[in-house]
C-alpha cells in the first residue's frame, strides 16, 4: 500500500469543505447534553464492552447500567465498531406483517385471511440520534437511501426509521491499518451526508457542520455550547493538525483509479481465471456481508404456527449456496468463486452502473473479520493490475 502522495494539503480540503468551527462542547458536558435530549429522543452511540473489547452501536443508557455486574460499558469514538450501524435502520430481522387464518362465519367451508400490522415497539416511534457514526458509515447510509428510498418503489419500513433519525458524525482522528475510504471516493472528515459533523479534540468536541433542520438541538441547549464568536484559537490549531495528520496516514490503493475505471476493469476480468485463483480459501460464510455497512441483501420468509404467523425479512448473504438455488434444483452460482465474483462485482461494478457510486466505503471491516484472510483490497487491486490499461497513477 503506498502512502497518499496527492498534495491536497489540509488547507485546500478545509477550504473546499468550508470547515469552520460552528460551536464547541466541552467533553464533560456531552453526557449532560445527552441527558437533556434523551427525554424526547433515543440515543445510540459506539459503546465498548470492556469485558471483551468489542465496540458496537448500542442504546446510550447501557453506559449507566451498573446492574449487570459482569460487564462494563464505555463510549468509544476512536475505534471502528465491529459491525456497521446499518442495523439501526435495517434490523437483522424485521416483521413485515402478520396474518391469521380465520373461519368465515357466513360460509362454513371457507377460510379468510386477516392481515395485521406488526407490533411496533415504542423505540421505533421515537426520534433517534445516532451519535459517533464515522464518515464511511454515513456514506453507506446515503447509499442505502439510493437502494431503499428513491424512485417509484420505496421501502417504507426503512424510510420511516430513516426520516426519524438524526446523524451526528464524528470525523476519524484515528486511521486504522485497514481503512481505505479515500480510495473509493470518501474522506475521513467528509460530513456532507450527515446532519451534524463533529471532530473530537483533546478536551472538547468541535461542531463543524450543522444542518438547518437540526439547529434546534443546539439552540435548545445553548448553555452547554460555546458561541461561534467566542471560540478559542487553540481549537482551530488542534483541528487543523488532526485533519492533516489523518490524510497523511491514509493508504492509497487501487492505483488512484476512478470508479469508472474500476468498473470497467471488473467487467473485463469477469470471465478470467483471476476469480478461481483468488477465492480458493473462501469458506462462503456471511461474516463479511453482515459486518459490511453497504451490504443490504435480505430474505423474505413466511413462518406459521397453527393458524397464525408472520412474514418477516432478515439479512441474507449472497455467499450462501442457497441464495440463487431454484426450486428445480438448478443453481446459477453453485461454485464459491462465482458467488464471490458476484459479490465484488456488485460493489465495484453493478452499483456503479446503476447509480454512479461505488458500493464500498473503504471501512475495512470485511478484511478484519474474515476467518481466512480474504482481502477485498487485494482482489480489486489484482483485477486492476491485470487490466494493463489502468496505469498505476501514483508512480507519476
Amino acid at each position, binding site marked *: 500500500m503506498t502512502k497518499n502522495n496527492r498534495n491536497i494539503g489540509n488547507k485546500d480540503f478545509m477550504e473546499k469543505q468550508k470547515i469552520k468551527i460552528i460551536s464547541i462542547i466541552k467533553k464533560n458536558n456531552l453526557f449532560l447534553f445527552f441527558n437533556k435530549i434523551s427525554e424526547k429522543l433515543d440515543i445510540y452511540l459506539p459503546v*465498548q464492552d*470492556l469485558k*471483551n*473489547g*468489542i*465496540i*458496537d452501536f448500542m442504546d446510550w443508557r447501557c453506559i449507566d447500567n451498573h446492574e*449487570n455486574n*459482569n*460487564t462494563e460499558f464505555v463510549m*468509544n469514538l476512536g*475505534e471502528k465498531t*465491529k*459491525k456497521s450501524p446499518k442495523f439501526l435502520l435495517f434490523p*437483522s*430481522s424485521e416483521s413485515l406483517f402478520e396474518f391469521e387464518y380465520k373461519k368465515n362465519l357466513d360460509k362454513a367451508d371457507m377460510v379468510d385471511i386477516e392481515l395485521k400490522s406488526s407490533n411496533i415497539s415504542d423505540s421505533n416511534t421515537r426520534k433517534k440520534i445516532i451519535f459517533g457514526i464515522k464518515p464511511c458509515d454515513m456514506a453507506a447510509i446515503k447509499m442505502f437511501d439510493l437502494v431503499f428510498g428513491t424512485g417509484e418503489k420505496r421501502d417504507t419500513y426503512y424510510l420511516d426509521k430513516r426520516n426519524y433519525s438524526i446523524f451526528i458524525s464524528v470525523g476519524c482522528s*484515528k486511521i*486504522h*491499518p*485497514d481503512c481505505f475510504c479515500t480510495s473509493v471516493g470518501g474522506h475521513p472528515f467528509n460530513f456532507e451526508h450527515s446532519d451534524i459533523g463533529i471532530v473530537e479534540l483533546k478536551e472538547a468536541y468541535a461542531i463543524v457542520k450543522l444542518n438547518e433542520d437540526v439547529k434546534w438541538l443546539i439552540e435548545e441547549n445553548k448553555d452547554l455550547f460555546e458561541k461561534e464568536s467566542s471560540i478559542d484559537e487553540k481549537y482551530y490549531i488542534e483541528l487543523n493538525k488532526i485533519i492533516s495528520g489523518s490524510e497523511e496516514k491514509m493508504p492509497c490503493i487501487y492505483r488512484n483509479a476512478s470508479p469508472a475505471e474500476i468498473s470497467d476493469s471488473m467487467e473485463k476480468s469477469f470471465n478470467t481465471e483471476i476469480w478461481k485463483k483468488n477465492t*480458493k*480459501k473462501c*469458506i*462462503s*460464510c*456471511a*461474516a463479511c*456481508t*453482515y*459486518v459490511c455497512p453497504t451490504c443490504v441483501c435480505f*430474505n423474505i*420468509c413466511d*413462518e406459521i404456527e397453527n393458524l397464525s404467523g408472520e412474514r*418477516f425479512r*432478515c*439479512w441474507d*448473504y449472497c455467499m*450462501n*449456496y*442457497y441464495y440463487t438455488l431454484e426450486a428445480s434444483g438448478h443453481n446459477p452460482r453453485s461454485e464459491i468463486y462465482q458467488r464471490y465474483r458476484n459479490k465484488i462485482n456488485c460493489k465495484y461494478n453493478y452499483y456503479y452502473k446503476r447509480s454512479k457510486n461505488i458500493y464500498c466505503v473503504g471501512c475495512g471491516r470485511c*478484511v*478484519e*473479520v474474515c*476467518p*481466512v*484472510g480474504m*482481502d477485498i*483490497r*487485494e482482489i480489486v487491486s489484482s483485477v486492476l493490475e491485470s487490466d494493463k490499461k489502468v496505469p498505476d497513477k501514483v508512480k507519476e
Partner: protein
Amino acid sequence: MGTEERLKEKIGNLIDDLKVIVGYTKSNIPLRVNPLFIEKKEEIDKLIFNNLCINNLATYSYFLSQEIDGKIGIILKPCDVKAIVQLVAEGLINREKIKIISVGCNGVIDYKKIQRKINGLKIASADITGSSIKIGTGEKDFEFNIEDIYAEKCYVCRIYDKPPIYDEYIENDIKFNIRSKEEYEDLMEFEKLSLEEIYSFWEHEFSRCIRCYACRNICPLEVCRDRCIAQLDQPHWQSQKITSSEGKFFQLIRVMHLAGRCVECGECERVCPSNIPILKLMKKMNREINKLFGFVPGLAIDSKPPLLTFKNIEKNIKEEELI
C-alpha cells in the same frame, strides 16, 4: 536448516505427485496467516511455518477431496491431524486421497487473546523477540510474555510432536516448551458458577450472534454447509430470524451435530466475529461423551465413533436408571 526451509524442501519434492498442497502464507494483517494453495513449484516460496499458524487447514480437506480428482497434500499441525483422522474414521474422506504432511509444533499464538488484552485497539504492528512480543497500536504500545498468549489448546497439548497419523513428518527445530494446564480446567472453573450466572453469561454472549455461519463453515467436520438443516424450508427446523435465541438454538444444533466428533481445534471460537466463546460448549459435550463412552475423537483412524455405531449393551449407560 530451519523448520520452514525443510518444509519448503519437502513440498518441493512432493508437488509433482499432488494436485494441490494447502499450506500457510503471510497475511497483510499483523499476527495472522492465510491459507495458501500451491499448485506449481514457483508458488512454494510463499510458504511459511511459524508460531502464528493457528488456522486448521483440515477445513479444506473434505471439499477439496470432493472437487479434485487426484491426491491432495495438506500441511497440518499434529492437533489438526485429528480432524482428518475423525473424517476418515467416519468415512467422509478417503484416506488415500490426502497426503498428511505434518510439522512438529511448538505452540501457536492466539491473536484474539492479545486483542482482548489491548481493549479494542487495533494491532498495527507485532514484533516477536525471544520470549516477549511487542504490540504497536498507533497509540499505546504493549508488551506481553509469549508464555501467556498461546492458544488455550496448546496448554493441554500432548501430541505436539506425535501426530496420530502422517505420511510425512517434519520435526520442529524449536522445542515445545509451554507449561501444561489440566485438561478442562477452564470448564471446571466455569461450572463453579450458579445456574443463573451461567444462563445470564450465555444470554449476554449470544446477544451479539449474527448467524454468519462462520463457525459452521470453518469447522473441518461440518461438511454439511450447503445443506444445513438450520437453513432449510422443509423440514422447518429453525426460524430464519436473526435473534439471540435463534443464535443459541443454532449453536445447540452444532453441539449435537459434533457430539463425539469435535476435535477441539478451536477454529469456531477463533473465527466468530462477535467473540462468543462457543468452544466451551463443544468441550463440555466432548467431556460428557468421554464419560459415557470412553471415547476421544480424532486419535485412532479405525475407531468406531460411538454415536455412529450401535452396541446392544453400553458399559456406562445403566438402562435401569434411565426409566
